[in-house]
């Protein structure tokens, strides 16, 4: 069985199957754009929450952490209610499109990025801030130092969010409809192969996805390494 998987995976790569290439491009587009948009919202939100003490901060953090357990299908269905023809945004025709999937994914990972950014800030925060202030930094300057010192944690949040989207099935199926040539992604194609009983091909696609993720993570590692010098 497992050598079949390897043979299938190799075959997919060397034949440069245009269908599989399409799934990969779609999966990466969705993951990249979603991570980008969610990062623009989630990182500043995380920094704000992490740097300030305010009444109800604990409650906010608890809610964020709870949202990490949100099933992807629930996110997908919630967005479906809005973008379906019956829903308030039905006229925008977002259902069964890539932008429709992206909306769902963004909502899925905003809590993830925010929560991990908050965690990254609080890990380094207090000590770094005290040190910076002791060394004569202004309050604003101290804030900035904390953010800089938390950058690896924030990068980890981005990587985790990207991984969540690229490996996710529920949102992509409900909002995308798994339509060939339009919204079929690596993971929904994989699920379809499972439905068809093509387990070896499904696992081969899984390996391919993992390989792509590996190259992206190596790229991130490189960026991170560059930052350390």
């Amino acid at each position, binding site marked *: 069985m497992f050598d079949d998987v390897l043979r299938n995976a190799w075959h997919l790569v060397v034949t440069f199957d245009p269908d599989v290439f399409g799934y990969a491009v779609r999966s990466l587009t969705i993951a*990249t754009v979603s991570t*980008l948009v969610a990062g623009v919202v989630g990182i500043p939100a995380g920094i704000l929450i992490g740097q300030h003490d305010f009444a109800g901060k604990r409650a906010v953090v608890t809610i964020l952490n709870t949202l990490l357990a949100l099933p992807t299908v629930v996110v997908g269905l919630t967005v479906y209610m809005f973008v379906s023809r019956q829903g308030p945004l039905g006229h925008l025709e977002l259902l069964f499109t890539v932008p429709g999937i992206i909306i769902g994914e963004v909502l899925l990972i905003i809590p993830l990025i925010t929560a991990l950014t908050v965690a990254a800030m609080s890990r380094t925060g207090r000590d770094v801030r005290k040190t910076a202030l002791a060394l004569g930094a202004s309050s604003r300057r101290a804030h900035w130092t904390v953010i800089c010192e938390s*950058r690896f944690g924030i990068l980890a949040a981005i990587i985790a969010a990207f991984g969540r989207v690229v490996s996710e099935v529920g949102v992509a199926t409900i909002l995308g*409809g798994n339509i*060939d*040539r*339009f919204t079929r992604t690596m993971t929904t194609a994989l699920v*379809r192969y499972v439905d068809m009983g093509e387990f070896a091909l499904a696992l081969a696609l899984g390996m391919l996805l993992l390989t792509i993720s590996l190259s992206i993570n190596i790229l991130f590692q490189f*960026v991170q390494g560059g930052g350390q010098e």
Partner: protein
Amino acid sequence: MIRLTLSLLATVGLAAESCCGAAYAADETLTLATTTSTDNSGLLSHLHPDFEKKTGIQVKVVAKGTGASLQLARDGNADVVLVHAREQEEQFVAEGYGVLRREVMYNDFVILGPPEDPARIRGIRNPADALRSVAQGGHCFVSRGDGSGTHVREQQLWRRTGLPLETDAVTVILEGQKRRYASVRPPGGWYVSVGQGMGKTIMVATEKRAYTLADRGTYYAFALSTPAKTDLAILSEGHESLRNPYGVMAVNPARHPHVNFTGARKYIEWITSPEVQEMIGRYAVEGKTLFYPSARVPELR
């Protein structure tokens, strides 16, 4: 550094967007809500290039169970529907959601089971008798349990066995009105409801050495592949109550003015045309015919 990462992501994103953007640029598309059996059997990908060539309309296929497909159409998220659950189709038309309903083709259901056949149903033509034997012996039976056309048919067959049945019901409030969705099942731990598509259900039945109801097309796709994905055998087949007709309908533009009704009409005319009917009849997987066009009806054995 974060900014660098973000701009990197943006560049990749834009590049990918522009390169797969062509897929959205199709002039006219038609969304077809259909069942997994027509999609997984390869029939639609065999037929649709002809439609696209003749009309220039790209067909977007959303493959779900019959229940989910009709719901998509009710919500106005599809233009045309190709499903197999006649009562539900007629209700769909009667409620004013569907128009131009036509028969397209049929295949049939078969009762599968382990070749050693512990319930001794091999050769029993009437599926109700076969199912009664399975139930009385307490042999494992795997049900789709997902509200699909196959699941609907399975429940009809259980009703015909005359055995006592349990009702599983959920109440759903839609537009302020309570609706009750009920499904029946025989009582007992031997009856396993998996809530999955046809393919996965066959795989579960294979693993559990169980009986199940399947459409012939999906079964052939699993049994005749190399290597075979299931060793379950057809134990009961050919009875009138196992006939599985597929119908096509357009979503009523009076209900949902935005639907591509012209495209839907073209699709219906195309799929019921003699030429395409012949293509359907000739379509075979591993030498086995999977669907029979409704215009010419060969005898079911």
